[in-house]
């Protein structure tokens, strides 16, 4: 069976094709076509088929990572969107949580006020109101009002509508009825409801999520349809699946309906790709470290499980989004990050980035600001002639000039300045990792750092050293790890429901009833995707907190019917998790089950482990020996450093640092005091100290 992964990034579209029988994979990179990314993707697929001698009709599945929805939000370029909401609550998405994003600013913009997803003129109210705890109707739905609102919005040229009623997460009947009425009046409208998108309490966040879904809906729907058309035209027989933020793929039809689930599509694929590579080398506790031109994405994977971000921590473009997402920390630190000394004399690197246009000074495209890439080049850690496999030549003299200017401002020599740039950017990345490990009760010394993305392997070892992480794993094709990650996923859907049940008074029957309903809804989704229940695994969980707290922790629930013993396990697991997360638990305090949830995992075909590398020799791999600069025991010194071609390295034969490993899509730095070897899973393993 042949599978294709297509990951569309800001600059490049990465592709990988794999054959599950031969276990062979081939990769390709084409420029991204920003006006319509499906253009470049389709061209890339055609080229990859041709190169690998694959007939398009032999492709069983195309898995796709996309930034289309994210860009629509970040660029504030979505549909003219309308909202129909409960009377008395027209401005929930405008007032928000009445908090300013910045403490110390008079001139700041509040994103949801300055760039509303639904302008106030398009927020219409209708009479309806439910009240907790059971969702009793206080005010029946004014159906005629809904009909009138639908007509008004249609006549105003609105393209998409979000229906947002208070307490709809308890009982969505009013929202569903309103949706049906809007579609009766206006069948071609993109209509979304708050309870469909995010059936959880917290109205500002839920309404905003629904509004965002509507805002990006028409654009993503059209994109998905166009992509499918292009695949058909190209003769590709297989289905299109799109990567969601939750670490699974969804069908094209699902994404066309709920595009808001794809906001972290690319970074999620990266976490999976990094984990897939390192797990083949038997590594079970992983920090994924995906560094590109402008940002570094950090994830934690333990025994094949990654954490989901808590609903309170998921933001896109300054808006809160209540959808399941892999817990990924993104910071503005990458190869293009700009170094500068500010007016007060502070030395800063990032978050501003030179991006790919104009790019680092050494790209010679007009950029003159010193970047992280320039610093790496000045220190001799990048080979000017072997960048992107020689497809791009770097201009060392421009990097030199940029760093010399910076050094002058600092009053040091250029190597000190360049090394300073790396130390600062590495410290920023190490801090981000610390916040996901040390601060969560995880000891980084028990982990492997999986370094990928174009710039991850350049920084992996030094960042690991800052954290006492003993080992770095570099996947075979670091630059296309996200595309490979697309081929490791399952069809993953979530069903969530707010429960509000308190220990001591839990209605177990109700929980079981609710779980049964979620399960039915979930299976219906899989059936629509052509997957029978036998191919779907259900995982049950709950969001719990001590009564009175405002933040929940995710605890796994036992499979099947819940009973008193099972519930007791849940309470114990919550105390333990609270203790681990916060260093403290309150065993005497009552616990509240806030949400229950089921995640479905529908098995999809996957990329197989690549064959064992043939292995070469050091002599064959040696490109050159040159001076590279490293700081060892406080002293900054030049070292004679061997540059090796990765594909010619011997198998399982440790090479002492300093060494630089070059390959088409990335460069790996092995500092003095570290060693590197190619293992049988085709990963590079870097270790601090001598290899035993």
């Amino acid at each position, binding site marked *: 069976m042949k599978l294709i992964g297509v990951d569309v990034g800001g600059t490049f579209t990465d592709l990988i094709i794999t054959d599950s029988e031969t276990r062979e994979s081939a990769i390709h990179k084409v420029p991204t076509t920003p006006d319509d990314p499906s253009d470049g993707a389709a061209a890339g697929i055609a080229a990859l088929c041709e190169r690998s001698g694959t007939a398009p009709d032999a492709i069983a599945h195309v898995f796709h990572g996309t930034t289309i929805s994210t860009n629509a939000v970040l660029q504030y370029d979505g549909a003219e969107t309308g909202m129909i909401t409960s009377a*008395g*609550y*027209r*401005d*929930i998405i405008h*007032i928000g*949580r*009445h*908090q*300013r994003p*910045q*403490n*110390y*600013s*008079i*001139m*700041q*913009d*509040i994103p949801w*006020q300055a760039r509303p997803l639904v*302008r*106030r*003129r398009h927020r219409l109210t209708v009479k309806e109101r439910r*009240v*907790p705890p059971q969702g009793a109707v206080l005010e029946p739905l004014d159906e005629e009002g809904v009909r009138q609102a639908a007509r008004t919005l249609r006549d105003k040229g609105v393209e998409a509508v979000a229906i947002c009623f*208070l*307490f709809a997460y308890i009982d969505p009947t009013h929202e569903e009825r309103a949706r049906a009425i809007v579609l009766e009046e206006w069948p071609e409208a993109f209509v979304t409801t708050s309870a469909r998108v995010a059936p959880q*309490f*917290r*109205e*500002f966040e839920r309404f905003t999520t629904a509004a965002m879904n509507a805002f990006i809906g028409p654009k993503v729907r059209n994109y998905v349809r166009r992509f499918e058309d292009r695949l058909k035209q190209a003769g590709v027989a297989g289905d299109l699946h799109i990567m969601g933020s939750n670490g699974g793929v969804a069908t094209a039809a699902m994404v066309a309906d709920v595009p808001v689930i794809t906001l972290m599509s690319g970074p999620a694929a990266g976490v999976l790709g990094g984990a897939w590579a390192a797990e083949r080398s038997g590594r079970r506790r992983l920090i994924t470290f995906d560094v590109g031109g402008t940002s570094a994405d950090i994830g934690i994977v333990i025994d094949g499980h990654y954490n989901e971000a808590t609903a309170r921590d998921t933001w896109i473009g300054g808006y809160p989004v209540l959808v399941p997402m892999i817990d990924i920390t993104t910071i503005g630190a990458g190869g293009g990050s700009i170094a500068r000394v500010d*007016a*007060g*004399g*502070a*030395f800063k*690197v990032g978050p501003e980035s030179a991006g790919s246009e104009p790019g680092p000074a050494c790209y010679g495209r007009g950029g003159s600001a010193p970047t992280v890439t320039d610093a790496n080049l000045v220190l001799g850690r990048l080979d000017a002639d072997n960048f992107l496999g020689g497809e791009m030549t770097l201009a060392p003299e421009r990097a030199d000039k940029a760093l010399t200017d910076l050094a002058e*401002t*600092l009053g040091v020599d250029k190597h*000190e*300045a360049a090394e*300073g740039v790396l*130390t*600062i950017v590495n*410290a920023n990345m190490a*801090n981000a990792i610390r*916040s996901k490990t040390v*601060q969560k009760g995880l000891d980084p010394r028990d982990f492997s750092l999986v370094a990928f993305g174009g710039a991850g392997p350049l920084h992996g070892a030094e960042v690991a050293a800052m954290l006492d992480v003993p080992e770095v794993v570099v996947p075979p094709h670091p630059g296309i790890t996200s595309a490979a990650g697309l081929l490791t996923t399952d069809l993953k859907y979530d069903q969530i429901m707010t429960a*509000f049940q308190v220990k001591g008074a839990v209605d177990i029957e109700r929980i079981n009833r609710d779980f049964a309903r979620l399960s039915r809804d979930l299976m219906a989704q899989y059936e629509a995707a052509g997957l029978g229940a036998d191919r779907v695994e259900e995982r049950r969980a709950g969001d719990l907190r*001590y009564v*009175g*707290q*405002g*933040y929940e922790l995710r605890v796994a629930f036992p499979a099947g019917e819940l009973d008193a013993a099972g519930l007791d396990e849940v309470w114990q697991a919550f105390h333990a998790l*609270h203790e681990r997360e*916060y*260093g*403290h638990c*309150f065993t005497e*305090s009552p616990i509240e089950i806030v949400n229950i949830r089921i995640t479905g995992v529908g098995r999809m075909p996957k990329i197989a482990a690549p064959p064992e590398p043939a292995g070469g020799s050091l002599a064959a791999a040696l490109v050159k020996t040159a001076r590279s600069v490293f700081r060892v025991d406080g002293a900054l010194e030049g070292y004679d450093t061997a540059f090796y071609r990765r594909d010619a390295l011997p198998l399982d034969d440790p090479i002492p640092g300093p060494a630089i490993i070059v390959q088409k899509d990335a460069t790996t730095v092995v500092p003095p005091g570290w060693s590197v070897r190619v293992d049988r899973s085709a990963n590079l393993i870097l270790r601090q100290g001598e290899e035993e």
Partner: protein
Amino acid sequence: MAETPNVRPIDAVTASVIQGALENIAVEMGWKLMRMSYSSIIRESEDFGAAIIDRHGRQLCESKHSTPLQSGPIPGYVKGMNQILEERGQTLNEGDVIIHNSAYHGASHGPDVAFIVPVFHGGALVGYAVTTAHHLDIGALSPGSCGIVDAMDAYAEGLQFKALKAYDRGVANEALWHMMRDNIRAPDMVVGDMEAQVAASRIGAERYLALIERQGLDTVEAAADALMDYSERLMRQAIEALPDGTYRAEGHVDGFLDDPDRRHFKVAVAVTVKGSELVVDLDGTARQCDDRPINMPLEGTVDCAIWLTVRSILLDSESFGHIPQNSGLIRPITIKAPEGTIANPTFPAPTIARFVSGNIVADTLMKALAQAVPDKVSAGVGNLKVIAFSGIKDGGHWVHMDIHEGSYGGRAGKDAMDAVDTLYANTRNNPIEDIESHLPLRIARYELRDDASAAGRWRGGIGSIREVSFLSDSFISVEGDGHAFRPWGFDGGAEGREAALVYHRADGEDIPFPSMMPNRAVKAGERLTLTGTCGGGYGDAAERSADAVAEDVRDGYISRETAESVYGVIVTESGQLDTAATEARRGSG
């Protein structure tokens, strides 16, 4: 090239690395406190602070989640604690945790309780990890900790913790904890929050010590000096850019509007800029109120209001980005307030309800600075109101604080921020779906005010209307402002709108309440309507673009009538701008 600051390069790199590490510590403290805590005032409203203080008492970093009025006073808490300990001849030991809330020793006010963990390295004191948080109740005369507006002196405000050891060398001071449980309403919640504070402060101490062990004490302290110098340098550069001179303004706090002897308190501000120094003098501010808590601690409230305002205007993070929040920032600023005024009261004048007065200090300071930097300020800012709701349920107290937001004034080139917490407050509201699921309250309406935006070239902010119904017999008390004085318009902009509070009795009678009101009973079925303040307009309304006015009409921010009568802009019934009619109208003045 601009003058290069004298920075040694290794210091620049190390300083950057250590700054990141310090901030990471404060963030972790705040994050853990927020997530572990029980009361909505901490976990939802984020009314807490977290900071690391060095051994000299200087703030090194603060949690970015915290509200400025909580983190800002932390150095003052430490100073006040040390002063008391010295007076008593007590010393700090490893394992100690100090509880402190004395408003006359650095605390912001009684309910903002600090837990201070001294950090020792090699037996020597090297700093303090501190959290502060607003507690729902500290045993004052009536339930809650907001709206205790009839406290007649510091003793009526609840328990006073003056640098007491909650843990002495790691051992809990059981007598103290029992006394707290016995004297605080809703003790499970409040003591639970305090335990969360202790845990968060201890984490901070642990992390700070680990940083010192990783980098060396000398390096950390050298970096801390460099970071403070850096923040100071930025502030001095910003002050130097202002024209030298003295700028004055006046503002007013409502006070107790139903009491002719205790209302309309004046706040007078004179800002003198001289080179890179700035002096804020509050001479002329009203005499203290001896027996009602409108007074503000000079250290802990007034100073924070001033620092926050100066920083938000001169080093606005929107254009300056992130700047280390440390004691260096305040070095160029001198604050003077005559003793015996509401801005520098003498013990035991009550201070518990100082919240709204401090925001008037901040707003009045901005009004003064507006003369020096008109393009960096907003017009008058609308003040806030806190309602404390309480009752008895299942044999225990329930207490809930609802902070009703104000709004900002218009700004140079920008309309205002609507319906938002203002100035030194930056809390979060509680979701309606959370409140109604857990309390016998119904939020029956929550929307922007109709046609209430102050006119200006850049319009003023729009406050909100919030309607609360009582589902069971309850109590309320009110601590607010903004009923008697309108936020100022700037440069020809219109004044904003006052707030209002109306109580709808079951018998149909509507009773207006003042902005400060002690605890009173309310009945199931009755309602309360809160109308929030609207900030002032900026610039002449006649200069607002006709298109922008038409957009305001389409969005329902203003009515067609207002567009015509105030802005001279004619908008048709269907929302179209009538260009010809507008030109005729505006042209004719």
